[in-house]
């Protein structure tokens, strides 16, 4: 099967030489690989975008998970932001609150769009709906944001991993943050090369992040990691737009993430056995939710 790009180097080179957006190359590749029409592909992504909007809306009204571990933080953040005294800026807290909203809905078994996974589904929409207020994109530009993020995610998924069980949280929220950083840069008018710099800067700061969910649930610390993923994406995008570059090329950062994931012990790859899951409070919470037998195995 013919692909337009297999790594970030090829993606950026093609976008630069043909003077095309990264999102455009992702759409063209999708048409080539699946033989579907542009209209059909755009329509499907539009539907994904609608699901993301609905999830944020639901989360900002306040939800609670069955376990009781998560829910309600998006509302706290949004109310705090509206008071207008945020230290890190309204746009950043807006992104954080919407990332949290999405993941709280996910934890409550609501409907979400995996980007690239369910556990990391808050970062891309959270940042999108926050920069939306600043950049005033058209609906098509918002859909394109998801294709830009998807192009980078496509490279990571094929050359490394987007599974927490295989590569830790760096593969999930790490990938999501870096994908979002690249998408923000394109929407802000940055070059394809700057998208790749933003991706690399973001991913470098997520390397080594383990997957250690309390009671094995996609709640603690996942929801708050989505918050930090969104913040990381915005700062990385700003750095790239300022002209800061990554000394280590994007593809090598992705490869480093993959190799770190492979050497991560199984207890820190979504088994709920190590890290925060193995703390006294983590174990006590697991026992409260599933009973003593469950925790004995942990």
């Amino acid at each position: 099967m013919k692909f337009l790009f297999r790594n970030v180097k090829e993606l950026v080179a093609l976008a630069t030489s043909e003077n095309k957006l990264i999102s455009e190359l992702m759409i063209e590749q999708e048409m080539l690989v699946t033989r579907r029409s542009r209209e059909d592909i755009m329509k499907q992504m539009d539907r994904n975008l609608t699901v993301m909007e609905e999830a944020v809306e639901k989360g900002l009204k306040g939800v609670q998970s069955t376990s009781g571990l998560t829910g309600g933080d998006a509302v706290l953040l949004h109310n705090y932001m509206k008071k207008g005294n945020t230290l890190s800026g309204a746009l950043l807290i807006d992104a954080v609150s919407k990332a949290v909203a999405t993941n709280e809905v996910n934890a409550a078994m609501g409907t979400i769009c995996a980007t690239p996974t369910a556990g990391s589904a808050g970062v891309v929409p959270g940042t999108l709906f926050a920069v939306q207020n600043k950049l005033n994109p058209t609906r098509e530009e918002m859909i394109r944001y998801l294709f830009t993020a998807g192009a980078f995610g496509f490279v990571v998924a094929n050359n490394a991993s987007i599974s927490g069980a295989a590569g830790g949280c760096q593969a999930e929220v790490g990938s999501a943050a870096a994908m979002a950083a690249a998408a923000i840069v394109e929407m802000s008018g940055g070059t394809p090369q700057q998208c790749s710099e933003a991706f690399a800067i973001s991913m470098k700061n997520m390397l080594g992040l383990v997957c250690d969910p309390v009671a094995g649930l996609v709640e603690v610390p996942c929801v708050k990691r989505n918050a930090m993923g969104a913040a990381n994406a915005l700062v990385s995008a700003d750095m790239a737009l300022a002209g800061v570059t990554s000394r280590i090329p994007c593809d090598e950062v992705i490869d480093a993430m993959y190799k770190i994931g492979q050497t991560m012990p199984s207890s820190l790859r979504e088994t709920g056995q190590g890290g925060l899951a193995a703390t006294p409070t983590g174990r006590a919470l697991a026992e409260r939710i599933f009973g003593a037998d469950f925790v004995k195995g942990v």
Partner: protein
Amino acid sequence: MKFKSVFDIIGPIMIGPSSSHTAGAARIGLVTRELFGRQPKWAKIYLYGSFAETYKGHGTDIAIIGGLLGFDTFDERIKTSFELAKDANLSFEFIPETGHTEHPNTARLVIGDESGEMELIGISIGGGKIEISELNGFPLRLSGNHSAILVVHEDKSGSIAKVATCLAEQNINIGHMEVSRKEQGKMALMVIEVDEPIEDYVLKQIALLPYINQVTKISD
């Protein structure tokens, strides 16, 4: 390239909380049902690795049962699949295993009813995407993302060519194909991923070819 579509990355639309453990699990159940060709009456589900450790919290169990009942990743009925299974006359058992598997999110499903049994190994490789790595003891690699046909046939010369010719005559392009057998000259399995939708009459034509024992279709 394991991931071919952008919608493997941005998507699927799904019920939370985990793309690997909930959406991927539902898809394993759904593909199993499609390969079986009907809803099974009973199911024994063996879980390995992270599936075994965390299936309760992620709703892996209700998602697999939901899939066996025919629910897709975004179907709200997944949440109540255990109760719905009772109504649908499907009995099931989950068995967490401690053995190691190549991929951490692996499930082995043994299902059946009064007229047959089937065994399948499914792995959830991330972002809701799955692969079927074994069917009734035959190793294979099937993504569940394309229309595919599975042909159980006798390991005789010409049997593969006849099936390929039959598809070519219908202008159906083969995107990926694998053939495996347990023993030379005995039973073999063809897995053919195709780019075009397959009509039932094509399956019937294939079933009539010599050395062909069984033909099943799975849609994307």
